[in-house]
């Protein structure tokens, strides 16, 4: 039901209301027109019977008075309009046949309206000589000398109907009502659109997304309830975010102490081992805080050289003993947030090295877009999991089962940061095996130095 309504473009409240009103107005309009026409018809048929009876009486009297030789001429002279009269020795009409009930009706009415006509026989029926025609009634009146006047009536003698005017005025009224209804429905549903916008803004993490509490009482109540709900959700999210941030933050002091304590350890290998554990904890805290920060950032966009930025990350990885290569143009300047970009790309490099052993980075720019491809030689990600990979806390354990540290925020954070730069990340499994991560972002070099 919904699908075909939608296909017809009737998925909005406005359109559905208009459709309902159209159907309603149409039904009422047709019904009243029908009733009106019915009454009109009855009046018209009475009027025409009276006139028919008058004409018949006139013709009969006139023909009766003249000699038989002139009767045909007189009858002819009295013809006119829908009526044609002839004189003859025998009647032309035959009673009975398919329309007999109607003829009998007509005969009764005529006799009632002009009692004088009943002095002779009246036969109403179809023309004996012609084919039967429903629009043609033949009335044969018997004169006192047993001869007949045959009167053909071609159609009902009805005055022209005024129904065209009625239809026009009713249609105008309907149009007016529909126009008004569109305005009314739009006005009534405007708060609903405001609600939808507000709900979306809340989802995007905006602080102020209150709906104005105005309009009809029902809408005011809905707005108030909506605002309350929104405030509750926001409080809930804020509380949890603050709690997590506070924990992450407070852990920094004990970690600092532990770092200082390891400096006094005699066992150098133990100190190194503890130190690397601490680094891992620190990294997890940093990632958590970065994730909680989401798109909120106080870092400004500025012109930076993406090549140098990635080069630093690659050199660091190389110093840590990783197998990593980087091919890039001499420079690639774009507008970005250096710390955020370093975190995003650093996360992607870390993933490639953790899961894919080796990482190959290729940076290029084409048609105003910088493109960084990071290939690894790991197991890749099963096709079903590719989309899920960006969800927070997903580690896709089944396929990437190495003990890796971190807890599944790397890709989420990277995507948030790159989206904030108008860029995107795409994951794909390489045909040769391994994962290929492609980062694209617009090059809006402030100084126009797009060097290839």
């Amino acid at each position: 039901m919904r699908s075909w309504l939608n296909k017809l473009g009737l998925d909005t409240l406005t359109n559905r209301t208009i459709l309902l009103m159209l159907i309603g107005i149409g039904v009422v309009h047709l019904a009243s027109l029908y009733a009106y026409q019915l009454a009109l018809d009855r009046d018209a048929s009475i009027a025409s019977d009276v006139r028919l009876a008058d004409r018949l009486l006139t013709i009969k009297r006139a023909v009766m008075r003249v000699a038989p030789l002139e009767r045909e001429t007189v009858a002819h002279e009295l013809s006119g309009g829908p009526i044609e009269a002839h004189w003859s020795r025998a009647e032309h009409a035959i009673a009975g046949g398919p329309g007999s009930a109607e003829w009998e009706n007509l005969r009764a009415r005529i006799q009632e309206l002009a009692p004088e006509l009943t002095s002779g026989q009246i036969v109403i029926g179809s023309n004996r000589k012609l084919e039967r025609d429903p629009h043609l009634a033949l009335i044969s009146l018997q004169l006192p000398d047993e001869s007949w006047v045959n009167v053909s009536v071609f159609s009902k003698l009805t005055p022209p109907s005024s129904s065209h005017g009625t239809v026009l005025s009713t249609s105008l009224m309907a149009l007016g009502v529909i126009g008004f209804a569109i305005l009314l429905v739009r006005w009534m549903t405007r708060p609903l659109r405001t609600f939808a916008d507000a709900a979306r803004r809340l989802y995007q993490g905006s602080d102020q997304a209150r709906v104005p509490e105005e309009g009809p009482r029902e809408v005011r109540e809905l707005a108030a309830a909506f605002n309350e709900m929104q405030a509750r959700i926001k409080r809930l999210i804020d509380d949890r975010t603050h709690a997590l941030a506070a924990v992450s933050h407070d852990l920094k002091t004990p970690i600092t102490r532990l770092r200082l304590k390891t400096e006094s350890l005699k066992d150098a290998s133990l100190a190194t081992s503890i130190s690397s554990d601490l680094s891992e904890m620190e990294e997890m805290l940093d990632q958590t805080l970065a994730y909680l920060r989401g798109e909120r950032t106080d870092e400004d966009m500025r012109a930076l050289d993406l090549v140098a930025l990635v080069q630093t990350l690659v050199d660091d990885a190389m110093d840590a003993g990783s197998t990593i290569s980087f091919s890039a143009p001499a420079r690639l300047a774009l507008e970005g947030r250096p710390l955020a970009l370093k975190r995003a790309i650093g996360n992607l490099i870390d993933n490639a090295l953790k899961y894919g052993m080796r990482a190959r980075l290729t940076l290029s720019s084409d048609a105003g877009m910088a493109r960084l491809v990071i290939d690894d030689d790991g197991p890749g990600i099963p096709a079903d999991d590719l989309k899920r990979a960006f969800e927070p806390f997903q580690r896709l354990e089944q396929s990437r089962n190495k003990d890796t540290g971190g807890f599944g925020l790397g890709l989420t954070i990277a995507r948030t940061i790159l989206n904030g730069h108008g860029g995107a990340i795409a994951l794909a499994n390489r045909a040769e095996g391994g994962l290929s991560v492609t980062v694209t972002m617009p090059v809006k070099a402030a100084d126009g130095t797009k060097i290839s």
Partner: protein
Amino acid sequence: MLLPTSSVERSPRILIVDDDGQIRQLLAGFLRENGFGVALARDGVEMRQAVLAENFDLIVLDLMLPGAGGLDLCRELRRTSSVPVIMLTAKGDDTDRIVGLEVGADDYLAKPFNPRELLARIKAVLRRSSGGSAEPALARQGFGFDGWRVDVLRRELINPDGVLVDLSGGEFELMLAFLESPNRILSRDWLLEATRNRAGDVFDRSIDVLVSRLRRKIEQGGYGIEVIKTVRGAGYLFMPKVTRA
């Protein structure tokens, strides 16, 4: 001739201002082991007393202090003294860092920091401040050469087009060592001493690798100039004319 701090006769005196007792004690022990004289302060009140009583070579100041915060204390210090300050920020947020630098800190380090990293920063700041002791701290903020700019506080290198060129910690220290002694041949040992102990360089990357990385970022950035010249058997020479800003 500029020499690394280890050759200075009197051991440098450092004031540590932190409200966490354990961190204060541990840090004091660590710095003493590494040849520094250390005094401790818990908050702004104790810091003011200590500063009045003695001339320190450097102050390590925690940003999050009870009472007057680290930012206010740093601003206050700067009104009367040019003693080098290293800020310990807890948040690691960019804003804290920048604000800390704007109130006159000479360097910053986010908690939880690696003690060796702090040691390296202390040595670097001491080396810089002893080099130009006549100048007030805020004047040591930048260098320029061939259209490039170096912001010491923010640890940033900006190319002639105004584009930020990212450097690693080691590369930046090497850059500073060159900028402080331009047009002079610097030996590998000297450069190693000036750049060692950085957290990112635990592997003691050879100076040659570090120089080649720095060269790549400056010289191959499409400008086609030779900035660092290798002097066979002697070391390296930073060629451009350096201006201080």
